[in-house]
């Protein structure tokens, strides 16, 4: 894996989130770990940045794990998903697997189980790096089609590759038709086979599908493989460039240790705001603007110098607020932070935004 994998962990219990964050740092691939204390928060984070693995609790308020996973599987079919739960219901486990989740794991109870869990996660992350089609791990699409044809099956394979979807019709072990991106028949088949990874599902066969592919599957697979080899050989070796642009200040702030959400905003009503990880940025924005205004005004009345920062906290969460240039900055953490940490991170963040 060229860069550190990113794991998103969703659980409503802040103590468990911290505990699992510590555990996950033991993974040999040294993943970047982001935390979400609700399903909505997890979806907001997934919307903002790509992740390699999503670990989700099932029992969460407002939006439970099954609801979150249903959305995640539909919107991010390539994302590996793991359910980590204390529930031991067989039916629930079946429902989770029916959603296409990669792993259903009971919360580990001892050190041995923890190690087993970490081994499974590392294995999932390495599969992500190798590619392959979900459902039959480490098998190429060619393998899957050969399996279907050799067993003389009738099926409709629906293959998803990022935003692209393709279909391959197999009847009685014969390739009948394929379709993707406006292409049909052999062209569509060749295009689908060029995808290196994705997900597939088997749908009921459609016996009435008109035949557009007349070659045998062996011949077609051979031709397609040759064409792909030739195009690979002809194409200059393209080395994917390393990302050279440094992360934006907001990305750097969001990646600070323990930071759960960030909101950088202009002070005037209607001025632009940028957020990372905030569940309901509009509501937070209103509160942040009003609170900053209130205490800046209070500072003037008390004649105690400029406002430096504001912290609000409980055992569940900690929020810091500071004026930055002409605007303001709100940062959130899960759980109460040690004294001094919030002010220090606010200062660092303000320096990044307003050097």
């Amino acid at each position, binding site marked *: 894996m060229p860069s550190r994998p990113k794991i998103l962990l969703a659980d409503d219990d802040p103590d468990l989130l911290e505990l699992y964050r510590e555990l996950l740092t033991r993974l040999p691939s040294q993943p970047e770990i982001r935390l979400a204390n609700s399903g909505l928060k997890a979806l907001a984070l997934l919307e903002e940045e790509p992740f390699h693995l999503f670990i989700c609790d099932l029992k969460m308020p407002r939006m439970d794990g099954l609801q979150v996973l249903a959305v995640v599987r539909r919107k991010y079919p390539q994302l590996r998903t793991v359910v980590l739960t204390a529930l031991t219901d067989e039916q629930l486990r079946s429902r989770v697997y029916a959603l296409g989740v990669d792993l259903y794991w009971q919360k580990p109870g001892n050190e041995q189980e923890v190690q087993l869990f970490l081994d499974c996660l590392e294995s999932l992350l390495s599969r992500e790096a190798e590619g392959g089609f979900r459902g039959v791990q480490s098998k190429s699409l060619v393998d899957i089609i050969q399996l279907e044809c050799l067993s003389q099956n009738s099926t409709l394979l629906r293959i998803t590759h990022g935003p692209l979807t393709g279909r391959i019709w197999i009847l009685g072990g014969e390739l009948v038709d394929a379709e993707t991106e406006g292409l049909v028949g052999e062209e569509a088949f060749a295009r689908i086979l060029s995808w290196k990874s994705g997900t597939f599902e088997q749908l009921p066969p459609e016996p009435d599908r008109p035949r557009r592919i007349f070659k045998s599957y062996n011949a077609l697979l051979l031709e397609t493989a040759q064409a792909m080899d030739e195009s690979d050989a002809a194409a200059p070796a393209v080395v994917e460039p390393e990302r050279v642009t440094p992360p934006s200040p907001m990305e750097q702030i969001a990646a600070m240790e323990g930071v759960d959400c960030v909101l950088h905003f202009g002070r005037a009503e209607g001025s632009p705001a940028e957020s990372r990880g905030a569940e309901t940025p509009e509501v937070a924005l209103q*509160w942040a603007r009003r609170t900053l205004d209130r205490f800046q005004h209070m500072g003037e009345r008390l004649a105690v110098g400029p406002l430096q920062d*504001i912290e609000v906290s409980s055992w569940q969460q900690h929020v810091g607020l500071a004026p930055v240039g002409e605007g303001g900055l709100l940062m959130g953490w899960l759980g109460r932070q040690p004294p001094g940490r919030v002010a220090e991170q606010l200062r660092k963040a303000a320096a990044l935004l307003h050097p």
Partner: protein
Amino acid sequence: MKWFRKTVSALRPLPAGSFTVDRNGHLLASTLPSDYPVSLVRELGLHVLTTFREARTAGLSVTDLVVRYQGLKIAARELRGGAIIFVFPQTPFNSAS
């Protein structure tokens, strides 16, 4: 001969101490200097209560508030709808806290 009379404006000392307010912002008890303007103390109490109330509306379940100015630190804790509020003047020797 003095052409101008020298006037010395009285500098109001920074408040130091604590006070409690009820849920309506009424001052219940205070250890602040008795000459410190009560109107300012009440205003601060109301601002603290409003901040807690609006935080709840915004989905933040918080019980503690710290506001740091260059010259003063305010620490407040919500108490059954009211609040206890501490004010500490900040000097170069204690401003890190």
